[in-house]
């Protein structure tokens, strides 16, 4: 029995990214119908194949039902009450960063993502997405020298239509699920990455998603293609202002790894989570999936999920190529009335494929944190192996943690291993640390980072430090 008031104080979370940028935006009217989709497509000057893709997805979406199987409870979303396109007004064509509205640059500066030439991060190329559009992408020329394409998906549609047409929707088809169908119909922007054959991307690539307006949804779409023997590490960060309404975020991320290619995709998600009474916050419904198409290809997801009122997210791997590898490392922290239903799917199709799942859920306050994962061994997946480890940590006595592992094996010559544990920060552990002079808050934060160590070790270095700080911040408060 840990002193409850202390724990409550400790897990109080100050949200430092809750400001709104006052900028003139171009918004279309609320609601969703064929005309709206045509309007979005027209604004983005898209080729016909893409408009068709959108309209087909919309037709499918209309026939689908919003899923209710997740361990989540929320007020029904009114899809006609959302603005599907919102963009800061700026000059038609921007040739350099100097022409970007300084307010936007300032916003990203404030978020710790400086974009200007003088200040930009030295080892990471950044694509900054503000509401529905990409504002800027740094280091493009340097990357181009290596043949790496890193740009917004809207630009890719214009300049690399062949790649988009070939790969878009091949990993997450429009009909995959309700939110993927919605995204396919209305997606506005996102990032595109292409790593050519034999190239190890010379720097980390990063997208930073910022939701600014309160009544628009964000529907970004990311597509990463790693050709034979290439490799890339991609980072994704997200924040949003504090509004007392809920904002819908329904993204789709598709990764494709060919023979001997490897993609590492890391996320630190810190969307606004709503206040202590559960008012406001982002509804985060995301479909992320990678296809290990080639032999010995590898896709590794690592995520630190700390924000959003609701998180519904299952970054998955389709292991087609023989000896391909899928990994999922996750930390999900929920507090107050946050709800998270997250996990992964590892679908073993090719022979001798391997997957590893390490999930760490931390629930504090009155929050609800569920791991939901599927490991499937197909008929041809001989000699394949999976190892899963799902640990939950409870802080206080009002939070809940669930684990829903689904295992399906059609291949007797394969191995599936699952370990699960639930722990509570015990009074004895806290007393031990305190009796060594360590303050209560720091003791909790030390134990939480200790609990997450296995996952943090998988994150790129700068990100690991950020994640550690973020968790500490979430657990920071005035000890009474």
């Amino acid at each position, binding site marked *: 029995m840990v002193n409850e008031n202390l724990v409550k104080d400790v897990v109080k979370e100050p949200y430092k990214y809750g400001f709104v940028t006052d900028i003139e935006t171009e918004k279309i009217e609320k609601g969703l119908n064929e005309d709206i989709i045509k309007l979005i497509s027209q604004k983005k000057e898209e080729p016909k194949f893409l408009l068709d893709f959108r309209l087909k997805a919309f037709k499918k979406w209309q026939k689908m039902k919003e899923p209710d199987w997740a361990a989540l409870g929320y007020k029904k979303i009114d899809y006609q009450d959302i603005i599907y396109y919102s963009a800061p007004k700026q000059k038609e064509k921007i040739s350099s960063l100097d022409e970007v509205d300084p307010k936007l640059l300032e916003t990203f500066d404030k978020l710790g993502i400086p974009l200007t030439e003088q200040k930009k991060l030295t080892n990471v190329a950044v694509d900054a997405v503000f509401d529905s559009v990409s504002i800027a992408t740094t280091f493009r020329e340097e990357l181009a020298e290596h043949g790496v394409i890193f740009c917004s998906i809207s630009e890719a549609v214009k300049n690399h239509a062949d790649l988009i047409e070939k790969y878009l929707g091949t990993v997450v088809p429009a009909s995959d699920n309700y939110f993927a169908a919605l995204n396919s119909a209305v997606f506005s922007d996102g990032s595109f990455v292409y790593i050519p054959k034999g190239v190890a991307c010379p720097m980390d690539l990063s997208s930073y998603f910022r939701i600014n307006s309160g009544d628009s949804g964000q529907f970004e779409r990311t597509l990463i293609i790693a050709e034979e023997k290439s490799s890339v590490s991609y980072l994704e960060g997200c924040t949003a202002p504090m509004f007392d309404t809920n904002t819908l975020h329904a993204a789709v991320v598709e990764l494709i790894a060919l023979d001997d290619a490897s993609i590492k995709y890391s996320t630190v998600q810190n969307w606004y989570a709503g206040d202590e009474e559960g008012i406001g916050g982002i509804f985060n419904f995301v479909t992320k999936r990678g296809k290990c198409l080639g032999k010995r290809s590898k896709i590794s997801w690592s995520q630190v999920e700390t924000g959003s009122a609701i998180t519904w997210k299952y970054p998955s791997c389709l292991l087609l190529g023989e000896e391909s590898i899928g990994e999922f490392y996750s930390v999900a922290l929920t507090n107050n009335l946050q709800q998270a239903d997250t996990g992964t799917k590892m679908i073993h199709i090719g022979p001798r494929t391997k997957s590893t799942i390490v999930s760490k859920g931390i629930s504090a306050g009155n929050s609800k944190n569920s791991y939901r994962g599927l490991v499937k061994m197909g008929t041809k997946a001989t000699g394949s192996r999976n190892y899963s480890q799902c640990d939950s940590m409870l802080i206080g006595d009002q939070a809940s943690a669930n684990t829903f592992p689904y295992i399906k094996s059609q291949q007797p010559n394969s191995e599936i291993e699952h370990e699960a544990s639930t722990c509570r920060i015990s009074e004895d552990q806290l007393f031990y640390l305190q009796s060594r*002079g360590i303050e209560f808050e720091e003791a909790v934060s030390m*134990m939480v980072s*200790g609990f997450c160590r296995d996952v943090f070790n998988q994150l790129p270095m700068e990100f690991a430090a950020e994640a550690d700080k973020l968790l500490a911040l979430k657990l920071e408060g005035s000890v009474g």
Partner: protein
Amino acid sequence: MKEPDPILEVENLSASTDNLPILKGVSLTVYPGEIHAIMGRNGCGKSTLSKIIAGHPSYNITNGDIKFLGENINSLEPEERSQSGIFLGFQYPIEIPGVSNLEFLRVSTNARRKFLNKEELDTFDFEELVKEKLEIVKMDQAFLSRSVNQGFSGGEKKRNEILQMALLEPKIAILDETDSGLDIDALRIVSSGIKKISNAQTGIILITHYQRLLDEIKPNYVHVMSDGQIIKTGESDLALELEEKGYEWTDNFIKEI
């Protein structure tokens, strides 16, 4: 010559947990340079006394005072007590998965150093210091990179406690059954470590069942506890007598009270 001020004064202390009285009026004063031993049957309140002095939140002080260097510390948080120089060596050191022993020791040491207005140590300087202290308990550096107490043997855990004591340089150390679960070699290492760390300015309270620790570290006073009270206090030969006659012998003292 003026007598030095006491380090620790426990005055008529009564305490309970879940409304169950555990301590029933304990008084104990420790002066600099003194070693006190507390003996008694399991459940007599020895460990509780040590936890209450360290500030464990599960116990309520219902009467009496604990004074450290003349100040009443009844309401201080455990971390404040540690920072100001009270050390509790745990009977069962707690495992903290995922937290590196080195980092734990460093944060802990710096908390004490900060209190003493000493410069806090960065990882490199701290490693130098800790290497020096490892010698005292004959521990291998490999212990530093492991999680706090996780997977340590009983003896390793106890040595890790003494390592912490060496780093924190407390004014008073209360060592709760530090000798239990140690083989003879480990007992020698631990007791010689305790002797090296303590000096004429520090006080030590040894909670133990066995004479063998007291053979290594000779106490100035031996207290026998029973049912939440100190029923007899004597010099070091009391422990020998107790070993010879057993606790049944002390039952007579209770009747006298």
